[in-house]
């Protein structure tokens, strides 16, 4: 694996994580992370759409004039999401009934348009797909982490109702962490999502800061210039 590919993967999963650093796609992220199963469902669907849209945008990158690229990208993403929704309805209706409400939400996820414009339109298909995969996994990981935090605090369980997504084999996956838990409504409702998200971002920043100071101690001169925190592409 080349250093370029490693860099793309690290970017998506950590350094430029769409949820924690770019802060994109917060609407679906905050709306559906009440439990692990919902978070996993949306994370998986977003991952698929992100990979698909990155691939298509990369394939047509030399055929679209700069001035009209955004409407074209929006059309591609909207068409892709609609096709995914119709296909799921036709082939896996039960899964559609569970994930159905999340699918249209994916269109509102600016992380997808963000990656199309910041990365896929400037890079060849195989790199664009890798970028979509890493960004999608990075996004899904944050969703699941936040879902787990809120489910644990809100209901005292983990992995409840996983069978809705993964079928009968997941029927007994529910872990009751706290017995006779009375429920903590705040964690389940949207404010809990904001606070939980804030805590995760704070934890990431603290960890990065700690690593930076360690690095500076070891090589005092290695840090040159200022580093951009948000990388969402250049403004044309």
């Amino acid at each position: 694996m080349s250093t370029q590919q490693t860099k793309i993967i690290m970017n998506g999963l950590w350094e430029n994580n769409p949820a924690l650093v770019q802060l994109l796609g917060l609407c679906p992220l905050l709306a559906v992370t009440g439990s692990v199963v919902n978070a996993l469902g949306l994370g998986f669907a977003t991952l698929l759409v992100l990979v698909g849209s990155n691939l298509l945008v990369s394939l047509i990158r030399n055929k679209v004039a700069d001035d009209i690229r955004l409407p074209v990208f929006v059309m591609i993403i909207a068409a892709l999401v609609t096709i995914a929704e119709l296909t799921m309805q036709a082939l896996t209706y039960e899964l559609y009934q569970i994930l159905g409400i999340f699918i249209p939400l994916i269109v509102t996820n600016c992380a997808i348009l963000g990656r199309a414009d910041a990365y896929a339109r400037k890079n060849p298909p195989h790199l664009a797909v890798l970028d979509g995969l890493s960004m999608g996994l990075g996004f899904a990981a944050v969703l699941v982490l936040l879902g787990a935090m809120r489910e644990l605090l809100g209901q005292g369980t983990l992995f409840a109702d996983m069978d809705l997504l993964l079928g009968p084999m997941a029927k007994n996956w529910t872990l009751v962490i706290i017995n006779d838990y009375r429920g903590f409504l705040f964690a389940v409702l949207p404010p809990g999502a904001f606070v939980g998200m804030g805590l995760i971002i704070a934890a990431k920043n603290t960890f990065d800061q700690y690593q930076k100071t360690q690095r500076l101690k070891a090589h005092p001169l290695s840090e040159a210039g200022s580093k951009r925190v948000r990388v969402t592409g250049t403004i044309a």
Partner: protein
Amino acid sequence: MSGTMPSSLITSIGAGAISLGVFAVLAAGAISLTYIAGSDAIAANKAAAKAQALSAVIPANLYDQSLLSAPVELADYSALNLEPKALAYAAVKSGTTQAIVLPVVAKDGYSGDISLLVGIDFDGIIQGVRTIEHKETPGLGDKVDHKKSAWIDSFIGKSLSNTPLDGWAVTKDGGVFDGFTGATITPRAVVNAVHQGLLYHQRQQSVLYNAPQEQ
């Protein structure tokens, strides 16, 4: 406006419009193809899901033809908060209606409408209730969903004659149905809606059981 627009601007607008149009046609075409290829399967899946939802509220020994085959249009749809032309479904066995599946909507849930199916037999006894659509709080109010909790089965066997008028409430309000910890509004709305369904069944019984039964 004075003079004409520079021709380069017109060219670039034209090129942009054409290329945008091409992409719009391609996108619409891709969606249409998917729709045409999948619409039969989608319709079949929807009908199967609906038949399954109906069969969940009526025991199998009360009908011998598809529940979808005997719809009954509800005259007084507004009493159940339904849209005009809303349909109930008759459970028909040997040519006679044994039970009715009534759709009921509760408007007074915690967030948005709660859509229910209530299966009631000829004697006015509830055979089953299912929540088919709701937006209640996950982990609290969503226990009205049979996938999350068996609470909704507590309606089975209840009727207007074996449960007095003030019994149709959650225990907190002095009724016979358990509420949920931390969520009273949702079960209160569901109990009320099921009660409305039973009252409707009683009022309209002659109409519901005399509808023509198609085979």
